[in-house]
């Protein structure tokens, strides 16, 4: 088990954001996390990688209890994240951005090693030509790839992807899905939040479904897609349901 999430509960003031969320992820697995908007998926990510401490529950990463550890401690232990709303370090160049990931990630690279690792990661996502540009000058799709490169440069054991496919056209989605597969083939486990149903259903080994902060279903993609509870959850979201039904 690379990740074990046990009974995680989180409250924001009077709002119950997450309730007793429990699931496991095996090493080398691509685990898809889906659910209607506002279900708490990003919040769950925030708890897993240490941005928030849960009110109750445990996060066990590679056998170590990391509950409540700050996000930089979690990153050092080999967890990296690509955010939904991209957060480039604007004044720094593309390469420097990725170097931060390499320097402060699991392996704590020196500056020179980080530079070459950064170039590798940029090549992997197709941004090698833009290495010296200030990252603020990239468009949104390129920034998303930068997020991914930055996370990869940290050589994580577990990669958290938050809606990496959002806003991409079908060609870009196909490319990204292939990239994700390659990343997994290199041995990195992936936990991904996604709304692009076709993609996440086809690429995930296992799916978990969150609704109103609770885990309502877990299983293989085919099982989850036909699960009545899941369909009901998305019925409140007709666009989603339509996409789900297409599978």
């Amino acid at each position, binding site marked *: 088990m690379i990740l074990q999430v046990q009974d995680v509960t989180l409250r924001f003031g009077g709002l119950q954001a997450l309730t007793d969320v429990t699931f496991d992820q095996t090493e080398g697995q691509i685990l898809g996390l889906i659910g209607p908007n506002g279900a708490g998926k990003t919040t769950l990510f925030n708890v897993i990688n240490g941005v928030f401490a849960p009110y109750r529950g445990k996060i066990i990463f590679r056998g170590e209890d990391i509950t409540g550890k700050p996000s930089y401690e979690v990153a050092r232990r080999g967890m990296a994240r690509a955010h939904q709303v991209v957060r480039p370090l604007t004044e*720094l160049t593309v390469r420097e951005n990725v170097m931060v990931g390499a320097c402060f990630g699991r392996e704590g690279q020196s500056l020179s090693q980080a530079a070459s690792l950064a170039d590798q990661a940029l090549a992997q996502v197709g941004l090698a030509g833009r290495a010296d540009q200030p990252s603020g000058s990239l468009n949104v799709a390129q920034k998303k790839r930068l997020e991914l490169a930055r996370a990869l440069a940290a050589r994580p054991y577990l990669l958290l992807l938050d809606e990496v496919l959002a806003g991409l056209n079908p060609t870009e989605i196909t490319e990204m899905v292939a990239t994700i597969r390659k990343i997994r083939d290199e041995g990195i486990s992936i936990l991904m939040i996604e709304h692009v149903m076709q993609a996440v259903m086809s690429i995930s080994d296992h799916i978990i479904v969150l609704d109103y902060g609770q885990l309502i279903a877990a299983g293989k993609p085919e099982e989850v897609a036909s699960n009545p509870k899941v369909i009901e959850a998305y019925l409140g979201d007709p666009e989603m349901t339509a996409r789900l039904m297409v599978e």
Partner: protein
Amino acid sequence: MKFWRQPGFWLPLVIVLLWGGTVLVLRQDTVRETAFTVLMFMALASSLNILLGYTGYVSFGHIVFFGLGGYTGFYLISEQGWPLLLASLAGGALSGFIALLVGLAVLRLRGAYFALATIGINEAARAFVSNFGPFGGATGLFVNFAAYEKYGGAGQALWTTFTFLWVTTLVVLVVSYLVKHSRFGLGLQAIREDEDAAMVMGVNAPRAKTITYVISAFFPGIIGTLYFFKNGNVEPGDAFQLHMSIEMLVMVMLGGMGTVLGPMVGATAYQGLRGYLLTSPIFKDLHLAVAGLILLLIILFVPAGAVGWVRGRLPALRRVLE
């Protein structure tokens, strides 16, 4: 890290080396006095830049480290007969220590809250020192002339103090460059751009900020000691001037924050301008207003400062203009 091969490393150092060297050779008091003031502000602005330019944290009350360190060093020299070098280092150490304590609490704040807190600390320190007996309370301390005798009399002592300041300035510039181009510095710049994202990437922001704060406080402590020793007295009104703090900020912004050369350029330009305004018959009373106008124009139109602007326009020069 082959920093000794980079032209950007040597440019600021060579300028200061040549300048200080010339002053020492010429052996003229007026030249020394002007150089002292400019070097002092260069070093102060560079120290502030280590915090402001690299982490983005705006310390409005940074002068407090100049004041507290200066008072401590002065006290040790004048009342306890310590040698200048040791007392300066002690002043710096005290400032660094205060920064450590204060930083643990205050660095948790962001943006404007942090800026306000630093003002509060400066004012609290000034008020405290005004009441603190051993430091002379509201009237401050006057130098014990025996302290000057140790260095061959007052005249000679001023030259020694200048040399110390010159060396300190060089050290600050080296430190500034090394921080900027180290892995540590990359982490700081990540904090500046997006602190939360930096932490998610593994940067231990609390520790990095504290270390930076301490470094940025250490040098003003030394400089304060040298300044007050040269002046022969220290009092609360002089040691904790909020205006001086702001002037340090102006110099960093004018020259270009986040660069090594920037604070140097800013300090020189600002002091030069100030000197001109104070002696010009038209502008004599208006120097503050003109300085304010310049600051405003910089903020509105050239926020990257002089060096930043040039680096933006002429990318080829980037390796030279660090």
